[in-house]
């Protein structure tokens, strides 16, 4: 199994290294100015030299990301359960959820800054707005995905609504819920970083990107992008790992074992 795993990792690693090599060679051979596109070596050096700054930025942004992610996903889930109980609420809340998800971040971010201040709370608020609807839609779809036969079985056991929910409908909804959780990791990162463009104390990944662009320190911009990319990937991988544990029974996992 380990050799199979390794064989799976080799192509992406090789491809990534090839891209970096072409980038480095291209920038040097074509004498591209560093303020347009720095070579990967310069970015790596800048990253190594700026660890305290980048760590402080990460610290600031991640608070907004995690708080917003948790609140937004939880709110979406709770509303989905409420909707499940009441058709009236479904017809009322779904279109509103749809509207809220369509609001552009660049519009709501300044408003959130005005309401919640310059610190991470306003970024969390933006992330809540962005992550609410995906979770709502997926949880509603998941809760209605239990088969009719299984629901009838629960009825024959005399299970009430809550017992059916906990024993049957929630587990069956898990693939959908984790789908939303994975989408929300990306949205949370984007939301927090972009919201930081619109007002922040002078620390944070979004702040770093926007000010270093203004100072023409593009290698620092790329270093921040690398940190954001690694954070986002690790976050996604974490959620995917939990998903694997919780929904081990799902057919999509079986195929890989063969």
């Amino acid at each position, binding site marked *: 199994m380990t050799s199979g795993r390794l064989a799976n990792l080799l192509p992406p690693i090789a491809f990534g290294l090839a891209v970096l090599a072409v980038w480095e060679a291209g920038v040097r051979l074509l004498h591209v100015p560093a*303020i*347009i596109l720095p070579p990967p070596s310069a970015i790596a050096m800048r990253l190594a030299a700026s660890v305290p700054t980048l760590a402080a930025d990460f610290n600031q942004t991640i608070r907004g990301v995690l708080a917003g992610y948790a609140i937004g996903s939880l709110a979406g889930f709770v509303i989905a359960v409420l909707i499940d109980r009441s058709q009236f609420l479904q017809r009322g809340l779904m279109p509103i959820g749809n509207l809220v998800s369509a609001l552009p971040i660049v519009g709501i971010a300044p408003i959130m800054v*005005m309401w919640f201040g*310059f610190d991470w709370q306003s970024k969390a608020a933006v992330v809540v707005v962005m992550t609410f609807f995906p979770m709502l839609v997926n949880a509603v779809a998941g809760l209605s995905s239990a088969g009719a036969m299984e629901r009838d079985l629960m009825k024959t056991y005399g299970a009430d609504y809550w017992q059916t929910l906990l024993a049957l409908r929630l587990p069956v909804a898990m693939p959908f819920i984790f789908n939303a959780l994975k989408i929300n990791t990306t949205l949370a990162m984007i939301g927090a970083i972009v919201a930081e*463009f619109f*007002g922040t104390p002078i620390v944070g990944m979004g702040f770093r990107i926007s000010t270093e662009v203004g*100072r023409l320190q593009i290698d620092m911009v790329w270093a921040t992008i690398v940190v954001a990319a690694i954070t986002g990937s690790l976050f996604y991988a974490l959620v995917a790992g939990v998903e694997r544990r919780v929904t081990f029974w799902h057919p999509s996992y079986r195929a890989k074992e063969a």
Partner: protein
Amino acid sequence: MKKSLFVFAGLAAILAAGAAHAADKVTLQLKWVADAQFAGYYVAKDKGFYKDENLDVTIKPGGPDIAPEQVLVGGGADVVVDWMPAALAAREKGAEMVNIAQPFKRSGLELTCRADTGIKTPQDLKGHTLGVWFAGNEYPFLNWMAKLGFKTDGSPGGVKVIKQNFNVDPLIQKQADCISTMTYNEYWQVIDAGYKPSQLVVFNYTDEGVSTLEDGLYVMQDKLKDPAFVDKMARFVRASMKGWDYARAHPAEAVKIVLDNDSTGAQTEHHQTQMMAEINKLTAGSDGRLDLAAYQQTVKELLSSGGSDPVISKEPVGAYTTVVTDKAFGKK
């Protein structure tokens, strides 16, 4: 065959003659949106001063987070309006931009505080929350704080800094005790928001002795090797300064010209009239030539800003040139 050759030759001759009379194209990138801060250029365009110098000028307005240095280096403009600290910092990073003219003699940067915060002198700023623009506008502030001995990273005994957007909300919403304003723009936005001058405490960077040169014209160094380009820029500077002179003599007409050129429709006559009056104070007395004493003062300010992140770390070499203004106005 001979007939088509004649037609072809005739066409070529007409085209060549046409090209000889075609005006030289110039693209100017402004530092901010189309408003009275750049009235001189819009006046020069609309009153035909550029046309008289055989120039066809395209004026590109700037905006939030548009760094003129990037546009210049990226080839998006022949000449840009920029502040000297940002230009010198960019030059040190390898963007070889050179100051060719300095229409703004005075600085309009100030820090406006609410009087109810109890701040009366710069020393009182300690421990307060201050709003600062970034995107190249933070250098004079960082310089001043270094002089006052206040750290800006939020450590105790220093000041707390927030990245202010290009509006005055942090002051009005009481999220900051002081914000950065220009004498000609944001200060009036605060007044228009209902504050009386008696409710505000204003620190003018010039009065504090930490002002740096603001709106100047910059081009890429390698382009100055071409004498035709130098000649083109000389004509451009001459016509632009004529525009500034006109704006000082006829401010109401200049405001109308600026409003006509504002494609966003966001500017109001009331605001632009105030702005024009203040801008005219900043350009008064400037003939376009860079005052070398003022340049040295700005460089000294930036070199002494010290700290872990100095604006510039060494004396700039070749950051300005007089060849353009010498050609435009004759050697001083």
